[in-house]
């Protein structure tokens, strides 16, 4: 399904600093929010930053149609995101959205969501969406440290939350993919949705493949336009090079050629 895309100035109505590297923006749309699906993203314009020529893509973290707001969860990685971290309530942020495809609607209730780092961003929206379809997923989230563990009580509203931290300061120690649920002989999940660093997604895909569990991952390639015309964000698939911004960002792992996967 291809949804109509918009270029809008949204207003920052709430700014929340989660920890040193992450912040949340709640953005109010001046017009009725368009239909947005979980897994879709927005391209945000970074103003007054000469070093930031291109927009920055962010997954939609959650949508509140009642309040006409959406949230972005942003990790400060460079000049562009640093600049965005200085936005204040009342400021405008120009978005092109909604972009890309979405996670599929699973035909099972045994669903596992796996997120690592900033890759947790689309999973909250996905969990909310699944709840509306009476699916309460298991949500496995990997963070670096206890300080970066955030919004757990919100995820917990929509599913059973499991946590790992790299240093073991909260939840199980290690990466999300090292969590003990993967050790059990019989993984009961019939669908895995995963978003995070490439290495993590590959590892989860490997488990899914071995256990014959259907798995979708959300890729984050560098992109210029975000709506399919620059052909910069491609990933090799069984149908040739495809655009992460249009044919993705969500791909079934069976379609991806992981051997050629960059990084």
């Amino acid at each position, binding site marked *: 399904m291809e949804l*109509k*895309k*918009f*270029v809008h100035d949204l207003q920052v109505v709430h700014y929340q600093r989660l920890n040193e590297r992450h912040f949340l923006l709640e953005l109010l749309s001046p017009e009725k929010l368009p239909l947005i699906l979980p897994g879709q993203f927005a391209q945000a*314009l970074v103003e007054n930053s*000469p*070093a*930031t*020529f*291109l*927009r920055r893509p962010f997954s939609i973290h959650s949508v509140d149609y009642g309040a006409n707001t959406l949230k972005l969860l942003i990790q400060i990685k460079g000049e562009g995101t640093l600049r965005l971290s200085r936005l204040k309530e009342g400021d405008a942020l120009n978005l*092109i959205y909604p972009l890309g495809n979405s996670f599929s609607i699973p035909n099972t209730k045994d669903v596992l969501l796996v997120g690592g780092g900033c890759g947790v961003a689309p999973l909250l929206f996905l969990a909310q969406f699944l709840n509306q379809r009476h699916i309460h997923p298991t949500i496995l989230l990997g963070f670096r440290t206890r300080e970066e563990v955030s919004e757990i009580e919100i995820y917990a509203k929509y599913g059973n939350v499991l946590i790992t931290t790299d240093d073991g300061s909260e939840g199980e120690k290690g990466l999300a993919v090292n969590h003990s649920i993967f050790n059990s002989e019989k993984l009961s999940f019939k669908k895995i949705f995963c978003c995070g660093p490439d290495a993590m997604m590959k590892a989860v895909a490997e488990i899914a493949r071995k256990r014959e569990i259907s798995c979708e991952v959300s890729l984050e*390639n*560098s*992109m*210029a*336009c*975000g*709506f*399919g*015309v*620059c*052909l*910069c*964000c*491609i*990933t*090799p698939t069984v149908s*040739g*090079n495809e655009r992460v911004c249009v044919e993705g960002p969500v791909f079934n792992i069976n379609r991806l050629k992981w051997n*050629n996967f*960059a990084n």
Partner: protein
Amino acid sequence: MPDLSVNIAGLHFKNPVSTASGTFGYGDEFRDFIDLARLGAVFVKAVTGKNREGNAYPRMAETSSGMLNSVGLQNKGVDHFCRDIYPRIRNFDTHIIVNVSGSTVEEYVEVAQRINELEKIPAIELNISCPNVKLGGMAFGTIPSMATEVTAAVRKVYKKILMVKLSPNVTSITDLAKAVVDGGADVITMINTLLGMAIDAERRQPVLSTITGGLSGPAIKPVALRMVWQVHNAVKIPIIGLGGIMNAADAIEFLLAGASAIQVGTANFIDPCVSIKIIDGIEDYMNRHKIESVALLIGALRTE
């Protein structure tokens, strides 16, 4: 209301603003954002003889005031264009101009011949300047005798308006401009991207899979303006100027330097509505300066 229309080698553009190949897809990708019928023309992305997968990821590097790309002419080939793309874009209420690329003279000729048969395509833009393909591409655009040869070969089979897109990666742009005029070009479009490079010092690696790529965006505008002005003074055929145009002021600078029309390229990535804003901005400028026809701005640079 001022007259924004321009005549490009006999082709009437409703205004001088068009969109650059490789930055605008096949046009319909922008349908949610703008009314395509307002554009002077749409230059659709490069078409080659056969399917090309393009270069490996990463293909893009952001730079100060611009970006590098090394897409490598990814497209599904001329058969696919004629069969699957053309029917869906043929009835746009603007000129659809096809960017024709290749690795050999034969490939350029073959693609041009096929496009010549498409009734609603009034012109082609011969891409002899892509820096991201190993064979052909830019070689044809940097050696004057080769530029003449490929232009003349296409001229023999292509009966409509033949535009040739020049590479800036040369010592003397006017030599190349004269070479394509000798080959029979009707229009020059200029400039394609400047060959550049980006390095990730932390990893001690190039950012692009191809190491080098084509630089576009406002970083290249002064170079493009200079070249348009030089070529305007060297040849008689019309020029369509591009290179880092972000707003109406930039577009007017190109007209003053000698371009008869302009293309908006990389700016489309940042603001998909920018081409329409540029048209409106040119009209505002003309009203402000009491200029009746945009044609009066072409090459109207005051140098005394």
